[in-house]
């Protein structure tokens, strides 16, 4: 058991997979000699050399295209898109090519490929470097979508993603990079699509993802002080989606609150809410409440950004609303 940061867990997890499988390569802007702009790939260049840890020009389409072509023909690339906002400059590769090619070719082509990206707000970087776009990915059939909330999960889910035969978008929440947690020694591999129940409580089910998980847990502490006990589910993966764990909990609590960092419309919470409203409607004892960033771009100033993103207070208030 070693304590490490979420940031270091990324490099640790990549190293575990590159050590194991010589076909795993890492590609992206400044991922090599510089160790990544978030310092999440430090040491890999020295350890695995420039043939396996490859710096690129500012050409996100070329990065993902190269990764896709390589995945089609025997490599298992891990590509980095530096900020998830930049998926917009290479969305054609992600949504139209990588997601659809196995299907269109009736299974002729396999794309074992991971695309990592720094996602989310909290760093005062403004509207073009702070988005939570996991719902962009979730909306496209053919993509698996993962977003760990702890250093341990970074390693376990990254290993699962690299070993998965399908394309996986791996969202690293940038506000979590400095956070610390225990990571077990030895090889660590998780399964995609298994949520984690981070806290048990009978009054309501709170479903969160990535940076919203610690915040939901903090809200749960506050609520416990007033006698409200909530279950907090960390989804960990949006595709596959662990409907079983969510539905089981909602059947017990009768109340559902989702906590999403993304702006309101068509977030993953809407999907979860719609599933529950179809499959567990008669188990519900109160409205399904979604706590999200309002449907606005993120502002840059610290005071404004803090006011925009779901706060502990807003989560607490959301749970209260769901209970009435």
């Amino acid at each position, binding site marked *: 058991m070693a304590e490490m940061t979420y940031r270091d867990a990324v490099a640790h997890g990549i190293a575990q997979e590159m050590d194991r499988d010589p076909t795993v390569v890492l590609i992206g802007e400044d991922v090599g000699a510089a160790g990544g702009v978030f310092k999440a790939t430090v040491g890999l260049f020295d350890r695995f050399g420039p043939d396996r840890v490859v710096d690129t020009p500012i*050409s996100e389409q070329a990065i993902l295209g*190269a990764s896709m072509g390589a995945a089609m023909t025997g490599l298992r690339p891990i590509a980095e898109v530096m900020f998830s906002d930049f998926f917009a400059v290479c969305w054609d590769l992600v949504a139209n090519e990588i997601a659809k090619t196995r*299907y269109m070719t009736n299974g002729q082509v396999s794309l074992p490929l991971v695309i990592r990206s720094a996602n989310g707000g909290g760093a005062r970087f403004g509207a073009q470097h702070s988005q939570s776009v996991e719902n962009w990915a979730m909306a496209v059939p053919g993509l698996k979508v993962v977003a760990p909330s702890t250093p341990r999960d970074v390693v376990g889910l990254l290993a699962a993603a690299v070993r998965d035969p399908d394309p996986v978008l791996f969202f690293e929440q940038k506000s979590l990079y400095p956070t610390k947690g225990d990571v077990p020694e030895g090889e660590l591999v998780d399964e995609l699509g298994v949520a984690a129940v981070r806290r048990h409580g009978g009054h309501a089910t709170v479903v969160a993802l990535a940076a919203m998980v610690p915040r939901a847990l903090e809200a749960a502490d506050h609520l416990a002080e007033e006698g409200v006990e909530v279950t907090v589910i960390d989804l960990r993966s949006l595709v596959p989606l*662990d409907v079983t764990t969510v539905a089981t909990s909602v059947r017990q609590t009768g109340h559902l609150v989702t906590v999403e960092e993304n702006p309101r419309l068509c977030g993953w919470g809407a999907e979860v809410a719609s599933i529950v409203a179809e499959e567990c409607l008669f188990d519900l004892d109160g409205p399904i409440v979604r706590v999200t960033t309002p449907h606005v771009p993120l502002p840059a100033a610290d005071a404004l950004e803090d006011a925009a993103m779901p706060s502990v207070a807003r989560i607490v208030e959301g749970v209260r609303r769901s209970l009435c």
Partner: protein
Amino acid sequence: MTELRDRSDAGGPTTGAVGGGAGLPAPAPLEVRIAVYKMMVEMRDFESRAYDLFMQGLVKGTSHLGLGQEAVAAGFAAAMRPSDYTFATYRGHNHTLARGASMTAMMAELMGRRAGLMAGKGGSMHLTSVPHRMMGSYAIVGAHLTIANGAAWSSKVRRTGDVTVCFFGDGTTNIGAFHEALNLAAVWKLPVVFVCENNRWMEYTPISSVTAVARPAADRAPAYGLDPVLVDGNDADATLATASAAIQRCRTGAGPVLVEAETYRHGGHSRADPGKYRPDEEVKAWLARDPIPRFRARLLESGVEEVVLQRIEEGSRVAVDAAVREAEASPPPDLSLVESDVWADGGSSWRR
């Protein structure tokens, strides 16, 4: 031959090969040239029939024909070894045939039948045959140039010596992905040949009206430190020679090659488009340069007997007839395919 020189001594495009093969080296062995002729005839027959079937409503959706552009597909395919990779566009029937895919499976794919190359899931614009290293036809302009880089990168990392050949149109040279792909290929010295089939039209718009240079690909080669290479795309000897030189250069690790093949589509852009927006004289002049009769005459000159060519032509007709019959006999795909093969486990489940 279209020489592939270092950039240092290149002034303008290397135009030696353009204009009917003057200045070409001794042509390829006769059996190779005959094989090229066979490919071209089969492409022509296959696509002509596909067009008829489209007009009869048996080919649904859309189709983009390469009628008139056969010498590019055949010349390059003949210069490739079986393990080399092809990437093509929605105008990819010829390139798929050229790598050896089954006519029946292709025709059935165009018709949306169970026997289709992708069981009907891809359609005309997405023909793919991985066993033939035909790595796909791509319907959104630009992306596949970057994907071709990936196959070439993989070949380089895995040290297989394979070369990737990536075809695209003149209109494609104006999209961002073209630029990113060419730069990366050059910086990484990838074994990839980019082949621009310049048929002068981007759908209904003349390429010259939307492009800042006269030769959309060749005039951009220097921007990637590459030699400009132009070839007469309606001259099968010339495309074969250029292809061989380009592929050879890639195979030796000298980095990518960008070829501009000047050609013309005989028909419209897609579907039932009659192509009326094109000036009559332009169409007439290019029909007169039809690569098939031109190459046929050249083969006769080279001593091939008429009967050999006739046998090829007859065989092609028979093969296409059989393919159409078999495709028509194939039932529609099983509806369970709708939810199959999103994932490698064969399914499409997104929940647990």
